C-alpha cells in the first residue's frame, strides 16, 4: 500500500497507508484528516479538498484534467503544485507523496 503523508495547516502530520485505486481525498477522509473537507463528495464542485502535492523523486502523477485545471484556477491560495485531492487516484507511483493542506478551503 502506498504511504501518503498529510500535513494539516497547523503542522499536525498523519501518515496513511492508502488503498490502490481509491482517491487521495477518500483516503484522507477515511483516516480522519480534518483539513480535507470534501463537502461535495468528489463531484468537483466545492474546492474543499484542495492540497499542495510534493512527490518523492521517484514518484509521478498524471496532469490535472481540463475540468480540474479550470477549478484549480479558482481556488484561494493556488500554487504551482495545487491539486484537488478528489481527482487524484492512489497509484504505486504516489508512494511517499506529501500533501500539505491550505489554511482555508474554498
Amino acid at each position, binding site marked *: 500500500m502506498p504511504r501518503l503523508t498529510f500535513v494539516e495547516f497547523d503542522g499536525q502530520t498523519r501518515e496513511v497507508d492508502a488503498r490502490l485505486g481509491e482517491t487521495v481525498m477518500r483516503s484522507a477522509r477515511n483516516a480522519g484528516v*480534518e483539513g480535507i473537507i470534501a463537502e461535495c463528495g468528489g463531484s468537483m464542485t466545492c474546492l474543499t479538498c484542495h492540497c499542495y502535492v510534493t512527490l518523492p523523486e521517484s514518484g509521478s502523477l498524471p496532469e490535472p484534467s481540463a475540468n480540474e485545471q479550470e477549478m484549480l484556477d479558482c481556488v484561494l491560495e493556488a500554487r504551482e503544485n495545487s491539486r484537488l485531492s478528489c481527482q487524484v487516484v492512489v497509484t504505486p507511483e504516489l508512494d511517499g507523496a506529501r500533501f500539505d493542506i491550505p489554511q482555508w478551503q474554498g
Partner: protein
Amino acid sequence: MTVLPKLRDLEDATFSPFMEESLLFGAHDDPYPFLAELREKGPVLKADYRTVMGLGPDITFPADAPHYMLMSYEACSKALLTPSVFSNQSYMYNLGACFGRSVSTMDAPEHGRFRRIFQKVFLPQYVKEWGGSVVDPVVNELLETFIHEGKADLVNQFTLLYPFGVIYKQLDLPPEEGKIFHKLAVTQTLVSVMRDKGVEASDKLGEFFPRLIAQRRANPGDDLVSLLVQTEVDGEYLPEDVLVSFFRQLINAAGDTTYRGTSVLLANLLKHPDQMEALRQDRSLLPNAIEEALRFDGPVLEQSRWTTTDIDFFGTHIPAGSLIHVMAGSANRDPAKFDNPDVFDIRRPNANRHLSFSGGPHICIGQHLARVEMTRAINAILDRLPNLKADPDMPPAQLKGAMMRVPHHLHVTFDPS
C-alpha cells in the same frame, strides 16, 4: 431588442407575500430543543417535519408518499453524499412547479452538465471581484442612510436590503424594477401553500426573463445575465428554460438566504458582546464567525430528497418513493459532531463542518458569494458603527421560523458619525 423589458406586477398589486411567509416557514421561537428530543429517539424517524412542527403540509408533494426525517449528523451527511439513492427529484414538486427546469431539481448526469456551466461564474476568483465592485457600494450606500442617527433596525434598514441590492446590481436591473422582481420572486415560492398566487408570479417572471435574455444577448454588458447567456462549456450554451429558472431562483437562493444568514450572525454577536468585541479587534476571526453562525442557526433548517430505491439506512427500512427531510438544523446541533452544540462560539474549531450549504453535488453554488457578502457587510458594520450594541430600550432580537430562520428586527445603538 435594445429596450429593457418591463416586469408586470401581480393582478392584485396590494398582495404582500412577505405577510404570508409564516404559513410557509413557521413562526417558532426556538425549534432546537424539540429537534434535540427527536434526535434522541433515533437517527431516522418516520415523520413529516412540517407536520411535526404544526405547519400545513406541502400541498405539492404526492399525498401518499411516506416521509422520513434524518436527525443525526452522520445520517444527514451520508444521504447528501449518496445522490444515487437520495435524489433531488423531491424538488420537482415544489421548486420545479415554480421555477421550472432548475439545476436544483436535476440529478446526474444532467445535473453535472449544467452545474459546471453555472458554477464557473460563482467560483471564488470571480466572486472576490464582485466583493469590491458590487457588494461594497451597496453596503456603504445603505449604511449612509442611517449612520448619523445613532440607532437603527439593522434588519429593516440593512440586512433585508443589501443582498437584494447586490442581485439588482449583478443583473443590472433598475431599482424600481428590482422591487417588483423581489415581490414576484417571493410570491412564486408560496406555491407550496397558495398555488394560484405562486403560479401567477412564476408566469410573470417567465415572460420577463426570456426578453431580458434576448436584450442582453443583443447588448451584452458586464452583468451576470450577459455573462451567463454568453458562457459556454464544450461549445454549449445554457438552454433558455434552464437560464430562466436560474434567474427565477436567484432571489430566494441568493438574496433571502444571505439576508437571513447575516441577520443570524448579527443577532448572535449582539447577544454576545464579548465575542463581538473580540471580532472587532481581530478580524481574522470573521471567516470562522460566519461558519459558526451558519452552524448555530443556519437559515435553512431542512433540505429534501426523494428515494429512488429501497434502502436500509441507519437501522430503518426506507422504501423507494419516500420524501426525505434532511434535517441540517438537527445535524448542526448533533453533540456527536459538535461539542457543546447549543453554545455559540466564534472560535469553534470545526464550525465549518455544518451542513447549512448542504453537501454533495448540490452543495450551494453561491456559497463563496454568500461568504464574501457577509464578510463585507460585517466588516463595514464593525468599522462604521462604533460602540454597536443592542438597543436597551427595545425588545431584544428574537429569531423566528421552523423551515427558515430570521429575526424580524435588530434594534441597535451606536456612536453616530
